């Protein structure tokens, strides 16, 4: 793994504009980098990223049944008691899931380490699947990259394939916070993949979802919603007014409710318990577990947290850096500290994609801070050698 710089494509801004990629800048900061890249060897991709990601996903799927079947585990993950039925039934029905993204630490040596599983509402999917791939083919055509340069990226075709597995009879609704450009863009991109798989699609704001007298979710034309992708976290939905109807109608949502147990940091100590000393796992404990005190370099994370909020890093038992936020009420876990790949660009985190049940692509984000957050940048990657 290396970080390189190369000339940006002269017309990349026009290209971004042409496909509606407006969030190449976010909050006044550049988000997409066209003039830098991370390089990997094929061996690194296959042995260090693809293989371990597949194994980690299989380990996670193997654990879901045990978690949803154990009141103690569900307590640990702070799944609200009156909604455990929703989660359990969605697993018993084997409600189909679409995608997820592992965040992995890799410093170029040794095995990658699992930081967390964004199994419910992962973003950066358009950047990875579409824009990053176009960047590669353009840079090869421009001669800035060798002709045989490759990328670990079959994300779009995997998404289209995964959408083909869902019934095409009902309209596939897509719900997001539509006033957020990034979330809307991500959602519309997924709609695009669904259209390519032959679905009829409709976008609505998550707040526009209605309910009828029988407790079925409805759209703005007063039609029953039979299938709905939502870019909105389960941990919120489970605690909101319409949650009471999830027991009856919760089967319409993608990701399914059982993903609530994988997108929860409580997964990490449970994985460690099941597979102690697994090369791709970091020692992890619930914060109140006495074993947690065995760690001196560690990261404390809320069970539920996004964009790095409320994450604190400790070195030699002392607080090194912390990120603000509104999470933490449900409790914390601690996880052994793993160094990230560090370069002039900052600290890099690998995002490894799972679609359906298959590992299929890579996204690299870098940040000046050791805590990767909302303002981190997306840097394309390339396989050379």
């Amino acid at each position, binding site marked *: 793994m290396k970080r390189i710089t190369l000339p940006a494509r002269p017309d990349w801004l026009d290209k971004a504009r042409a*496909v*509606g*990629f407006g969030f190449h800048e976010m*909050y006044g900061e550049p988000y997409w980098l066209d003039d830098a890249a991370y390089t990997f060897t*094929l061996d690194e*991709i296959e042995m260090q990223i693809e293989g371990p990601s597949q194994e980690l996903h299989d380990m996670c799927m193997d654990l879901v049944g045990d978690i949803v079947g154990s009141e103690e585990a569900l307590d640990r993950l702070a799944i609200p008691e009156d909604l455990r039925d929703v989660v359990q039934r969605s697993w018993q029905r084997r409600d189909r899931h679409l995608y997820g*993204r592992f965040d992995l630490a890799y410093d170029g040596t040794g095995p990658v380490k699992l930081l967390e599983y964004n199994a419910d*509402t992962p*973003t950066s999917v358009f950047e990875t*699947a579409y824009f990053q*791939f*176009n960047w*590669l*083919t353009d840079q090869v055509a421009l001669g800035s990259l060798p002709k045989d340069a*490759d990328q*670990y*990226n*079959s994300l779009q075709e995997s998404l289209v394939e995964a959408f*083909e597995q869902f*019934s*095409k*009879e009902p309209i596939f609704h897509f719900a997001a*916070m539509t006033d*957020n450009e*990034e*979330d*809307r*863009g*991500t959602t*519309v*991109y997924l*709609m*695009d993949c669904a*259209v*390519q798989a*032959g679905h009829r*699609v409709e*976008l609505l*704001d998550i*707040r526009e*979802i*209605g309910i*009828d007298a*029988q407790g*079925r979710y*409805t759209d*703005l034309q*007063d039609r*029953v919603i*039979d299938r709905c992708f939502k*870019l909105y*976290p389960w941990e*919120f939905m489970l605690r*909101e007014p*319409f949650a009471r109807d999830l027991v009856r109608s919760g089967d319409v949502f993608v990701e399914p409710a059982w993903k609530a147990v994988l*997108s929860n940091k409580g997964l990490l100590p449970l994985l460690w318990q099941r597979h102690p000393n697994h090369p791709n796992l970091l020692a992890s404990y619930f914060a109140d577990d006495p074993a947690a005190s065995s760690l001196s370099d560690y990261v404390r994370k809320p069970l539920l947290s*996004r*964009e790095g909020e409320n994450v604190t890093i400790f070195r030699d038992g002392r607080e090194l850096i912390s990120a603000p936020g509104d999470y933490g009420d449900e409790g914390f876990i601690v996880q052994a500290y793993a160094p990230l790949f560090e370069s002039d660009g900052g600290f890099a985190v690998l995002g490894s994609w799972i679609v359906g049940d298959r590992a299929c692509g890579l996204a690299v984000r870098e940040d000046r801070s050791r805590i990767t957050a*909302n303002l981190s940048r997306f840097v394309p990657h390339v*396989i050379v050698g």
Partner: protein
Amino acid sequence: MRRRKSGHKRPFLALGTIAASTLALSGCGDQTPSETMFTSVDQCVTSGMDRQVCQAGYQDAMRAHLAAAPRFNGMAACEAEYGSGQCTEQSASAVPNNTGGGGSFFVPFLTGYMLSSALNNIGDYYNYRRRQEESGSYYGSTPIYRNRSGQTVTTTVRSGGGNDTSIAPSRQTVKPVNVNTRTVARQGFGGRSSFSFGG
């Protein structure tokens, strides 16, 4: 030769852009036709779809209808489900790849067909149909029926090819989709505010 890690073809956007406005996608705009259930070829053409796509889609729906419409042994049983005057007798010999012998049964009238809104030309259509075939469904468009209470119903046509197509779905596999109802409340989800909910 070493295995490529990237997809076989350059990804494309069927909708053209990820900035597609909410309005255009929900049918209030002028770009994307959202109504893709058609009662006739003419209605399909009027909505802006390619004429050849509309015709091919209709023919496909008719073939799927002949192969797999919900079947009843008597007119009364069919009308009980689909309403008076909404059924017809069909000769078993009209069913494609029929291996089940002669005789006849009763089926509801085909009231329309369903197509993907992304099909702009016949090339798209054949591509779409090929994908459907690869994923195990046999026809390029879906037949639509209206049941007694006016709800839209479709049948699930699956085929590994050959003989399967002569097996009609049982009535249990016919279910209404996106039925009309009355919304009694909204804004029960989405109460949290944040920069972004993606991770």
